[in-house]
């Protein structure tokens, strides 16, 4: 069984960042408090955050529910358009690109979702699910291509003719990974992809993601509320709280010397698999 080592040692620190995000702001209308006439008040979800996503590395984005971590991720893959700020991809601002300009970039910016049961179409076979985006972006899309992608994520090629409900949770999440990597993207956003899995499938999926990212040179942003997972998987970490960055840096530094109360709280909340009578105190 291969053990997990941080990627940082293998890449040069001098590579420019894939993403440079500067002063990113985003708000949603608060429909619960909308007056009968006139505009709804806005809820500030991201309050001017700046960070880099280094090329070829895995960056963890961590925070509690409502901290804005998923929103920040969705701006990177431009599923959301920010109110203000820059999202530089290779130095080009993609924050406000129109659909026509963003479409050619979509293949490079892929996403794996938290719940594969709702992100994989239950009426389509696994083969169809993987092949459709490949055809869409002119990267093949035959049954054989889909089978090859399945083999890459450690699933049998015969799975092309199965339906999502016939697979276990861990297998479904591998299909999500296969669909993303089949397009040979430069960047993958993984949003809480192991939260629904039990520990053994979780370890398998994480190991797979790490190996594939390494082998294919894919940059990854990994969103999670579990700092244990981040510590083992990521090179860098960004800690968010209420739409602001409270801490960021190399994983080792942040874990060994957490600077913010939020990071310490998140660390202390993880039940580690060891006896500790004082954990609840």
């Amino acid at each position: 069984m291969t053990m997990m080592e941080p990627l940082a040692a293998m890449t040069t620190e001098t590579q420019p960042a894939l993403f440079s995000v500067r002063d990113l702001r985003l708000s949603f209308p608060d429909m619960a408090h909308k007056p009968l006439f006139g505009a709804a008040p806005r809820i500030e979800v991201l309050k001017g955050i700046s960070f880099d996503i280094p090329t070829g590395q895995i960056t963890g984005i961590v925070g509690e529910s409502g901290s804005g971590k998923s929103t920040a991720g969705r701006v990177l893959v431009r599923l959301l358009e920010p109110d203000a700020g820059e999202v530089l991809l290779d130095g080009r601002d993609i924050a406000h690109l129109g659909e026509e300009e963003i479409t050619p970039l979509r293949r490079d910016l892929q996403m794996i979702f938290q719940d594969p049961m709702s992100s994989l179409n239950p009426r389509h076979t696994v083969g169809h699910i993987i092949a459709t985006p490949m055809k869409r972006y002119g990267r093949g899309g035959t049954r054989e291509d889909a089978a090859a992608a399945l083999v890459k994520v450690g699933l049998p090629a015969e799975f092309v003719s199965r339906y999502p409900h016939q697979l276990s949770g861990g297998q479904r999440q591998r299909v999500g990974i296969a669909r993303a990597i089949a397009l040979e993207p430069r960047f993958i956003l993984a949003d809480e992809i192991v939260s629904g899995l039990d520990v053994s499938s979780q370890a398998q999926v994480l190991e797979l993601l790490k190996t594939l990212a390494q082998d294919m040179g894919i940059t990854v942003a990994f969103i999670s509320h579990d700092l244990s997972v981040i510590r083992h998987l990521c090179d860098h970490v960004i800690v968010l709280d209420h739409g602001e960055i409270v801490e960021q840096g190399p994983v080792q530094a942040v874990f060994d010397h957490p600077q913010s109360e939020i990071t310490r709280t998140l660390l202390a909340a993880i039940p580690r698999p060891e006896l500790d009578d004082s954990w609840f105190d």
Partner: protein
Amino acid sequence: MTKHRHTLDVVDLTIEIPNGMRLLRDVSLNLEPGEVRALVGESGAGKSMIGKAVLGILPSALKITSGEILMEGHNLGSLSPRARRAAVAETAALIPQDPLTALNPVRKIGPQITDPLVRIRGWSASEARKRALDLLDRVHIRAPERVMNSYPHELSGGMRQRVLIAAAFAPSPRLIVADEPTTALDVTVQKQILRLIRELQRETGTSVLFVTHDMGVVAKISQKVTVLFAGKVMEDAPTRDIFTDPGHPYTRALIAATPSHADPNRSFSPVPDSLIADLHRQIAQDDSLYRGARP
């Protein structure tokens, strides 16, 4: 009946689906008064099914083909369905995994807690209301009156789970089945919820059967552990022993698969395929219908 009465005894329980395939294999475990026992295993190991069998809420296609469930010494299998339901309602309660589906979306929180108190405990409406408010306060809900008047969708996930904990403890059950009650929650909320269950459990002396797949949670909440694989008990031991000297290779593998941020050098690794294959082979030797859970 023995002098030392357990809250729960599950004796050689076997559950099958109609084609004869076994989902639980001769599972035995017990719970002493005031004890928390963790039922741990991967998806499909049968841990939730044991909880459902104990509460008598197995899906109708599943049949208990052998074995017994004794609640406070009473054999539930010897009772009529009606008497069994009454006995279970009298003794046991459930904290479910998903607080949104467990609560009726079109009823206010208040009656969802008080109804069973009136119906099963026979309390008056005002007694039941007082108890509900008291319990909501105990699970650190700041405005119990307002929450009683809210609908489930108006509460956050953590709040809903607290409501369900309050509802479970309200009738003072002697046994609570907690079925992955924190799996859907953030780590910080999970810690609050685990603390609440522990507080109330210690105060009331309730026994808890705690279903989880997280060895970290096992270490913090339980005194005894049953480790399951493919419906079979791999190990049954005090929690202390499980973490200091695990007896079964599968237990060791589950602990090794749990990440720990404290010690990055202790890398975590999936349960080895070879071990899984071995276990499948052992089970198939006793069960010709068994094909193994995963390809």
